């Protein structure tokens, strides 16, 4: 039996690749600000650190464990926000959250989100939105604790 098309969209190749490769996965020592987040349903965790240069995000690093969706989302986030300003990252974050919570009614646009549009399928799975959000919530929390914030 082959998976349904919805499932195939949710777990498209790009997601599985990102989950496997895990861009930005690594030690976060020395990365400040940091945030540790837990998904209480499954116990999944992420520690995400940001290296700032002025108000610009130089690099993001993270480690933890979680499902393919959460790992892919962390990986995609890493590439997406590197080099952006804090304000830009917050904008991405707000839009990402909005789309994820839209129950399938909104979509990420490719111009802004690039490969991360592969996560569009998640918003239809309410129970999985938290997975996709985990890294983003960690980023938000980290930025909230940035020296100037």
């Amino acid at each position, binding site marked *: 039996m082959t*998976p349904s098309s919805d499932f195939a969209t949710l777990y498209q190749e790009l997601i599985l690749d990102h989950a496997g490769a895990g861009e930005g996965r690594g030690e976060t020592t020395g990365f400040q600000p940091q945030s540790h987040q837990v998904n209480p349903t499954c*116990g999944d965790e992420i520690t995400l650190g940001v290296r700032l240069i002025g108000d610009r995000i130089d690099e993001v690093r993270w480690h933890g464990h979680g499902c393919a969706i959460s790992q892919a989302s962390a990986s995609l986030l890493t590439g997406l926000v590197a080099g952006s300003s804090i304000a830009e990252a917050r904008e991405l974050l707000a839009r990402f959250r909005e789309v994820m919570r839209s129950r399938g009614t909104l979509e990420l646009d490719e111009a802004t989100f690039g490969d991360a549009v592969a996560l569009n399928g998640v918003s239809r799975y309410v129970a999985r939105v938290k997975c996709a959000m985990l890294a983003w919530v960690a980023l938000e929390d980290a930025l909230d604790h940035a020296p100037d914030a």
Partner: protein
Amino acid sequence: MPSEIETVALSEADVAAIRADFPILAERVNGHRLVYLDSAATAQKPEAVLDAEREFLIRRHAAVHRGAHTLAAEATEEFEDARAAVADFIGARADETVWTTNATAAINLIAYSLSNASSSAEFGRLALGPGDEIVTTEREHHANLIPWQQLAQRTGATLRHLPVDDDGALLLDELDGVVGERTRVLAFAHVSNVTGTLAPVSELVARARAVGALVVLDACQAVPQLPFDVRALDVDFAVFSGHKLYGPGGIGVLYGRRELLEAMPPFLTGGSMITTVTMERAEFLPPPQRFEAGTQPVSQVVGLAAAVRYLRGIGMDRVAGHGRGLGERMASGLAEIPGVRVIGNGERVGLVAFDLRGVHAHDVGQFLDDRGIAVRVGHHCAQPLHRRLGLTASVRASAAVHTTDCEVDAFLAAVADAAEFFERMR
């Protein structure tokens, strides 16, 4: 021990008849007929339970133990008859059977009552304090762990635990070292909600008796799956939830030995649990009313009695035989799938949890859900056990009286396909 329990299997025709009693089984999920393998989280309800509740609500609903009008008198009778039925189902007396919201509330009731005893002259006999020990195990549901952590924090007592081995089995070798003269309470699950295997109840109870500790049995996963008798088990307390026993939500049971309940101060206070109240103080009714403050969930009690009648109609020996057969089928089928690690060894009820190497439980669960198969993924409210097993999450499939071999096979096939699908990630 499981092998001592006489069980009989249900025939295919029996199960087919049972399935007709559960309306939800006709539902379709993602284009497939629902295969509900999450009964250990919460069981679906047979029509008999739904009808009993509705019938009560549209004909006889009233508050109990408070009113003198006809409806109230009839509701009170029905409420107490239900108590007698549920008590009888677990081998208890009605006046040893206390209604609670669920098993969690029942364990909290014991734990808070014990700390209230510690600050009361009248009920001081059960007081706990520094130097006293409370023992639980490393494989408990959080509901049978955190209330004891909190009790220890409130009273100054120490919380200890019996560890488990790499399979999640209790390390009986450590029992005498952990449970000793200072132990006041030994709390453990009859059937683990992760491994699905039985605790060695008689050994644990014998040790508790030898040192004079109270035994609190978390029977959440046992009562729906096994013939269950509090006297035969010789425990001091047993708790379970109605919603896992094919009954309504919002109703649970605390069994307590009569003389213990009598020695315990109340937990929740309010109406219907007092004799005389002044602005300064209150005198409390005997158990079970002492522990049943406020308006009781009467229709849920009526529904739970209907659930118990329903299970009696099938026969708990057959319920147990059916569950055991399904549990074995699931465990042995899973063991054959490359990369699957089944958690727990030995005879089990109809419940099995597993890990698929390199694939997160959520992803496996999503794959199964795509085929209409509902399983539980996560830590199942047992983080310490998962941590001990080197996992953060697992997939759990749990069967019910309405589960068929066919459904189990569909589940096994789906897990095998999931293993293949996620191959690239491993």
